């Protein structure tokens, strides 16, 4: 199969993720959309690695996964804390950082 198709898939996934981030309110869903975008990027990296015949892309994909894992931990902790204090997981309710 033509590897370029994977790039199309990655672009599709990224777009879905981005749209989710912009449209959805639930913090958990938002968070999953961010993960989706990260994974879309990973897929693109791996595809390019395959296309170019070297391992750089795969290494970066591993890095991304590790960083994403760490980010999930911190992010979920924040979401849980916000939920506890505000009884809501909606990001719009937490729009206090403005003048």
């Amino acid at each position, binding site marked *: 199969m033509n590897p370029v198709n994977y790039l199309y898939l990655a672009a599709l996934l990224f777009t879905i993720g*981005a749209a989710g*981030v*912009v*449209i959805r309110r639930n913090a958990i869903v*938002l968070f999953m959309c961010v993960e989706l975008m990260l994974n879309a990027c990973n897929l693109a990296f791996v595809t390019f690695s395959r296309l170019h015949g070297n391992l750089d892309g795969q290494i970066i994909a591993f890095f991304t996964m590790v960083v994403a894992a760490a980010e999930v931990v911190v992010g979920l902790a924040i979401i849980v804390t916000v939920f506890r204090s505000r009884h809501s997981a909606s*990001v*719009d309710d937490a*729009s*206090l*950082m*403005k*003048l």
Partner: protein
Amino acid sequence: MENLIGLLVAVPLLGAALLLCGGRRLDGKGHYIGTVLAGASFVIGAVLFADMLGRGEHDRALHSKVFSWIPVGGFRADVAFQLDQLSMTFVLLITGVGTLIHIYSIGYMEHDERRRRFFGYLNLFLAAMLLLVLADNYLLLYVGWEGVGLASYLLIGFWQHKPSAATAAKKAFIVNRVGDVGLSIAIMLMFTTFGTFTFAPVLTNADHASEGKLTAIGLMLLLAACGKSAQVPLQSWLGDAMEGPTPVSALIHAATMVTAGVYLITRSGAIFNAAPDAQAAVVAVGAVTLLFGAIVGCAKDDIKKALAGSTMSQIGYMILAAGLGPIGYVFAIMHLVTHGFFKAGLFLGAGSVMHAMNDEVDMRKYGGLRKYMPVTFITFGLGYLAIIGFPGLSGFWSKDKIIEAAFAKGGTEGWILGGAALLGAAITAYYMTRVMLLTFFGEKRWVPDEEGHEPHPHESPSSMTIPMIVLAVGSVFAGGLFSVNDAFLKWLEPVTGHSHGDSPLSAAAVTAGTMVVLAIGVALAWAQYGRRPVPRTAPRGSLLTRAARRDLLQDDFNHVALVKPGQYLTRGLVYVDHKLVDGVVNGTAASVGGLSGRLRKLQNGYARTYAVSMFGGTAVLIAATLLMRAV
């Protein structure tokens, strides 16, 4: 001996420092410290005088360098003193009369709780004036000059709880400042012309400079002298300066301050000799002021202001004499010294009268005091005879010489100046007789003061009468003593030079003329104030009298010519500042503020908005990169 010169200045300066920094501990004995130190300065002066007399005519000048003040490259300004016959004369006058006034003030200021401070200021005044006359360069003279201005400000405004005194002090300071600008410009001009401002090189090289520059320097020095010596057009501060305690008036008018201008012109004689135009200006200022002051003196009912007008007029005589060049320098200084005696005596006498009359100053409310205050009457009377130039007394010798010198100027100018001086003598006789008659003769016109106390005139304590007696003795004999064998002339001639002019009138004719105008002045005053009873309130008077009561409209003139335009100018500048400068600044601030107010709305706190802006930004970047690659 040279080291003593510095001590002369240091001793009163030490007194000022002690009294002003010593705090309340010295309240009980501050006045003694001040007086003793002033006296010590006089003793040092006397020792130096004796030493100077012991030396030959041409090596009498002493020099003493204390330290190098501003050594910058080739430029040097030293704190160095020069004591020659001219400075010596001033030193003895300043410390002598100054000490007497200190003694007088012990009694006069007895009930003032700030007496210690008062004596501190008096000492500061003496120190500044001594520095002024002892400096061997114009820059150090300028330091003394400013010191005198400061001390006069502090003393005129000594009773600063009275708004009138505070205003008078400010007025004196500001008017003096105009003159000070003249002196500083003169010093700068000297520096560019001669490369130095030490007296000796400047004055000996004066002939080599161009006349234009010398005229400029001379006019600036004249401006300075006008400020300090209260000459037209900078005379307006002197009358108001009477707000200060009376000993201060005596000190300002006799020993310090107003004599500084005469000293400056006499000291810079070489410059004026080489600049006839500047000299003509000096003469004109002197002649105008001597009449101006005399006319003002005629109309004032306030005893101190009448005397102030008289001072202005007498200093006018000195400036006139100094402007005549080598014919007049010696006589200017001689009149200055005799005037120092009798004017200090008159002011101390006036203070004594005020002391007795519950601080009443209106002469129309005096009258008949001669029986109650015999010592004051006699000493004041002797001062009066001296100032009008009664034959044989001090004023006669010095004023007569000035009138003679004015005629000796020659030509039409000589006649005009001589005529003005003679007219001045007549008016002097008139107003001084008026003061005398109103105060000591006639019936009692006393009125109770604001709190209802009837005045009980009494003779002042001996601390006040003794200085008055000493000064009266000086007023009687000083002039005659100076004139024996032309002693004063021979004493000063090596410093100031002297030449005899060709007088169109003989000395005897001038003296006779002076006597005639004197008699006319006295007779007029007698006819007006001696023969008839004097009303308690002043009659309306003629137009001239009313103008003279307002100091010949000096303040009105200053108000219209200087204050108003100044106010309009500042108002205009304030308007421009508000509208233009502030407009630009505030406009910038407002537009930045408005812009940021709009930009602030972008920060709405919704995470998705930030995400969109990030995506948008990334998209733009990618598009730009692709576009660049395509191009």
